[in-house]
C-alpha cells in the first residue's frame, strides 16, 4: 500500500497564488503527488508518496472562462489538475527553466487582482451577514430569551472573525500582486 498524507485547508494557508504554487511544487519535489483536485480539495487534499518530480504549478482564477480556456492551456503543454470553485490548478513537468504561464507583469497583476476580487466578494458577503445578525439581534431583542440572543452573538462573532481573516487575505494578495 502506498503512503498517503492528508492536508487540511491548504487553500487557506497559502493565500497568495504564487505561494500556493510553490507549496505544490515543494510537495512534488519531496515525492508527494497530487492526483486530482476537486471541489473538496480546498478542505482536505490527499497526497500520495512516490518518486520526487520537478513540476511547475500554476494557480489561476477565472470567473467565466471562455470556451477555449482549457484547450489553450493544454495546447501549451499544461496538465489540468482540477479546479476548486473558480480557481484552476495547472502543472507541467520540466527540467531546466521553470515554465511560466503569466509572462508579462500586466498578466501577473491581473491574475492577482482576480484572486483579490474573489476574496473581496466573500468579505462583503460575510460583512453583510454580520450586519444582518446584529440587526436581527436588536430588532428581536424584546422577544428573545438568553439562549437565542447568545446564538445571534455567536453567529455574528464567527462571521466577523472570518470577515477579518478575509480582509487580511485580501490585503496580503494585493501586497504581493506582482509576484
Amino acid at each position, binding site marked *: 500500500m502506498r503512503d498517503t498524507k492528508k492536508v487540511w485547508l491548504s487553500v487557506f494557508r497559502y493565500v497568495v497564488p504564487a505561494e500556493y504554487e510553490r507549496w505544490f511544487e515543494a510537495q512534488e519535489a519531496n515525492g508527494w503527488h497530487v492526483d486530482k483536485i476537486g471541489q473538496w480539495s480546498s478542505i482536505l487534499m490527499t497526497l500520495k508518496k512516490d518518486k520526487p518530480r520537478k513540476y511547475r504549478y500554476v494557480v489561476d482564477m477565472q470567473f467565466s472562462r*471562455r470556451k*477555449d480556456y482549457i484547450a489553450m*492551456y493544454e495546447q501549451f503543454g499544461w496538465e489540468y489538475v482540477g479546479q476548486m470553485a473558480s480557481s484552476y490548478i495547472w502543472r507541467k513537468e520540466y527540467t531546466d527553466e521553470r515554465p511560466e504561464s503569466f509572462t*508579462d507583469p500586466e498578466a501577473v497583476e491581473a491574475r492577482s487582482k482576480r484572486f483579490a476580487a474573489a476574496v473581496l466578494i466573500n468579505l462583503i458577503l460575510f460583512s453583510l451577514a454580520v450586519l444582518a445578525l446584529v440587526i436581527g439581534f436588536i430588532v428581536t431583542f424584546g422577544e428573545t430569551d438568553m439562549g437565542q440572543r447568545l446564538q445571534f452573538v455567536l453567529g455574528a462573532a464567527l462571521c466577523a472573525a472570518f470577515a477579518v481573516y478575509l480582509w487580511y487575505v485580501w490585503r496580503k494578495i494585493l501586497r504581493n500582486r506582482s509576484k
Partner: protein
Amino acid sequence: MDLSKAVKRYIPMSETMFYILLSLRDPNHGYGIMQQVKELTDGRVNMGAGTIYQSIGKLEGDGLITQIREEDRKKIYAITELGTQVLTIEAKRIRELYRNTEGLL
C-alpha cells in the same frame, strides 16, 4: 469601442499586445500566436498561456480582434479594422522612437 478610446487605452502599447495584434493580421489560435511571436523575436518574447489567454480576452472585449471560427475547441482570432488602426498608430509612434534613437548608437 471607438478609436479615440482605444488609443487612450492601448497606446503606448505593451510588447505583448503589440505582438499579438501584429501576429493576428494572419488569423491564428493562441498557441500559434506564441509560436509566431517567438520566431519573429528570435525566441526573446516567449508568451505563456495565461498571458495570451488574458490578452486575447481584453483585445476581443474591446473589439481590436475577433473570433472568426473554431477548430476542434481552439478558437481562431483575427485583427479587426479597429485593431489595425490602433496597431498603425502604435507603429508610427515606434518609428518616431526609432528615428529619435539614431545618433545614440
